């Protein structure tokens, strides 16, 4: 495995700037997730690392070695696509062995066999090795396509939303599996997704992309607790953070702020709270209850783990944990 360093990368397609001055350092053995909506430049970044796309300017280093002019096949990266692309007429075994049989690699039979079994075991598809690819369920197919990337020992694994076509239960399961495998193999992974849950649950570090600009990089906790803009604060957290006008809150600690951000879990139903509001809806999410509230001056949502005995239409008092309020200026940037 390798570390990957992108330095001042620019890439435009016609008049559209896909990436603007991107600087990114992915450490050896790191699970790095690029998070952003469609069109943010996630896939372009992956393609530039793999060599499928050339940047207009900037440098790409693998282990501090410049690879700008190295052909994709010789960069030794391993790519997993969103749609599993297996050879339908091959068995699972042959699908997994295929990348190792490449003339570029010249692995012997025994090595191939050992590796295929090792990876099949990790992905829990050992008992399917003799099945045709078409005889698999969706989840199994995606395991095989992950496996086909993992059998190789590349410089970096590049993954483009590999779980997004699976249903919720399978996605939950594979998230845990993939993170476990990455930890066991000490693999370097650059993973792109628009799904914030995938990002916070698997990443060692997350980079938040917005329209080709990397707006913040940090551990999931840093990004969740210390977002540097309203944009980032909105990207992470489900239910979403409450963004209010600074004037709407009582005794603001920052008179020059324009907006405040308050996480739903930092608002409590509290008899001594200073806000009188009316409950609009309550939603049970399992261990937690989501309450949306409204008044003439303030509206938002709060999240509580406690048993609540109030319901729709009730008037309640709420309190905000003031130490957790995030302040933003009129450009929606964080003020500290």
């Amino acid at each position: 495995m390798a570390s990957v360093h992108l330095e001042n990368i620019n890439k435009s397609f016609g008049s559209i700037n896909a990436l603007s001055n991107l600087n990114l350092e992915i450490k050896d053995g790191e699970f790095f997730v690029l998070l952003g909506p469609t069109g943010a430049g996630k896939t372009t970044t992956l393609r530039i690392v793999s060599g499928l796309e050339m940047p207009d300017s900037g440098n790409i280093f693998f282990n501090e070695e410049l690879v700008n002019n190295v052909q994709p096949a010789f960069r030794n990266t391993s790519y997993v696509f969103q749609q599993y692309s297996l050879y339908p007429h091959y068995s699972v075994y042959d699908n997994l062995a295929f990348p190792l049989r490449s003339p570029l690699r010249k692995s012997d039979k025994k090595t191939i066999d050992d590796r295929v079994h090792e990876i099949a075991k990790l992905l829990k598809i050992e008992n399917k090795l003799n099945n045709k690819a078409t005889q698999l369920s969706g989840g199994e197919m995606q395991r095989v396509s992950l496996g086909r990337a993992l059998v190789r020992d590349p410089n970096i694994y590049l993954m483009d939303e590999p779980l997004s076509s699976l249903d919720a239960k399978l996605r939950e399961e594979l998230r845990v599996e993939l993170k476990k495998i990455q930890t066991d193999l000490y693999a370097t992974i650059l993973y792109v997704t628009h799904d914030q849950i995938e990002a916070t649950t698997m990443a060692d570090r997350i980079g938040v992309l917005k329209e080709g600009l990397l707006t913040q990089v940090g551990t999931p906790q840093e990004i969740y607790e210390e977002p540097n803009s309203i944009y980032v604060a909105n990207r992470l957290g489900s239910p979403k953070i409450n963004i209010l006008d600074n004037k709407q809150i009582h005794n603001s600690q920052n008179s020059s702020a324009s907006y405040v951000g308050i996480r739903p879990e930092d608002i409590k139903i509290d008899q001594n709270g200073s806000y009188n509001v009316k409950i609009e809806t309550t939603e049970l999410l399992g261990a937690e209850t989501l309450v949306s509230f409204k008044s003439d001056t303030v509206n938002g949502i709060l999240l509580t783990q406690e048993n609540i005995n109030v319901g729709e239409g009730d008037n309640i008092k709420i309190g905000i944990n003031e130490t957790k309020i995030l302040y933003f200026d009129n450009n929606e940037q964080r003020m500290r």
Partner: protein
Amino acid sequence: MSEIKIERIKKTFDDFVAVEESDLTINNGEFFVLLGPSGCGKTTTLRMIAGLELPTSGKILLDNEDVTFLRASQRDIAFVFQLFALYPHMNVRNNLAFPLKMQKFSKDEINTRINEVANLLRIDHLLSSKVSGLAGGDRQRVALGRAIVRRPKAFLMDEPLGTLDAEFRELMCLELRKLHNNIDATTVYVTHDQLEAMSMGDRIAVMHKGRILQHGKPKDIYTKPKTKFVGSFIGSPAMNFIPVNHTIQKNQNSVKIDNEEYAVPKSFQNTSSQNNVLGVRPEKMFLSDNKGIPGEVYGSEYLGTRKILTIQSRFGTYKIRVSNDVNLKIGANVKISFDSDSAIIFDGQTDEALHSEFIN
């Protein structure tokens, strides 16, 4: 709005039983959710209420009127299939007017109703826009508007949010629920998504293989599932199941797992089976310093306010919910235990929850 009553209704397709004899009462003004995996009979039930399918036997009452054999068009019910089904070449106003024109309402009445609905759904400013140019959320509001303008007795919705991405779905759930409250509607909503059901429903009926296994308030179904299936289908992450390899006697208030005794709510029943299962929700399990099931951390997922740990033990893989300051590395050895007052024992033979101090 109105009350819907289903009495001993049954539907078979040849020798396949789609819906077994069931009873249900959906109260006036209620948001009622039919929840289950695909093929469980929920859509068939909804279609029988709508009149799109005739029951093999049984009765359907709408406000105490027997409508079992009335045509769909005679039932005064609005069916929302997929919220995106709009006429793309018409503007918003004409899309909303369409169902009223079909029923030959006067021009004035049509205009009054459209303005009222547009106001309610905050789409007044879009009335003359083409539907094809609208953003996803606005389209969805228009489709809802088209169901509402008729002022039907009940709304029937079949997975209306199924095709939306997670973030947008969250928003629409909230809006749908607010709308339901504002117009004081009776709504029957079909979905396979437990989170949608829990967050919107006043009451939920969980269906499986043509049978209604349990119905009640979301909270009761979540905390007190009556069968193992309901326990595992509701909740994300799902309920944890720990094997208990001995019979349970009436009045017994502990179980043995891995040669350790654990307190459980006092049982009011005996089990017939030797292989029973203990069901515990992820938030009711915790890391223990003393007694506990030994396991290894397999995954640790950060989710803002909380973390979900995946623990592998020799009895199976368990998910537990911990606060976000718990920092454990993958591979760390831990012991896990559970809150004794909310544990449920499912009979190994019947998969049904034993009646106990906690559940009855």
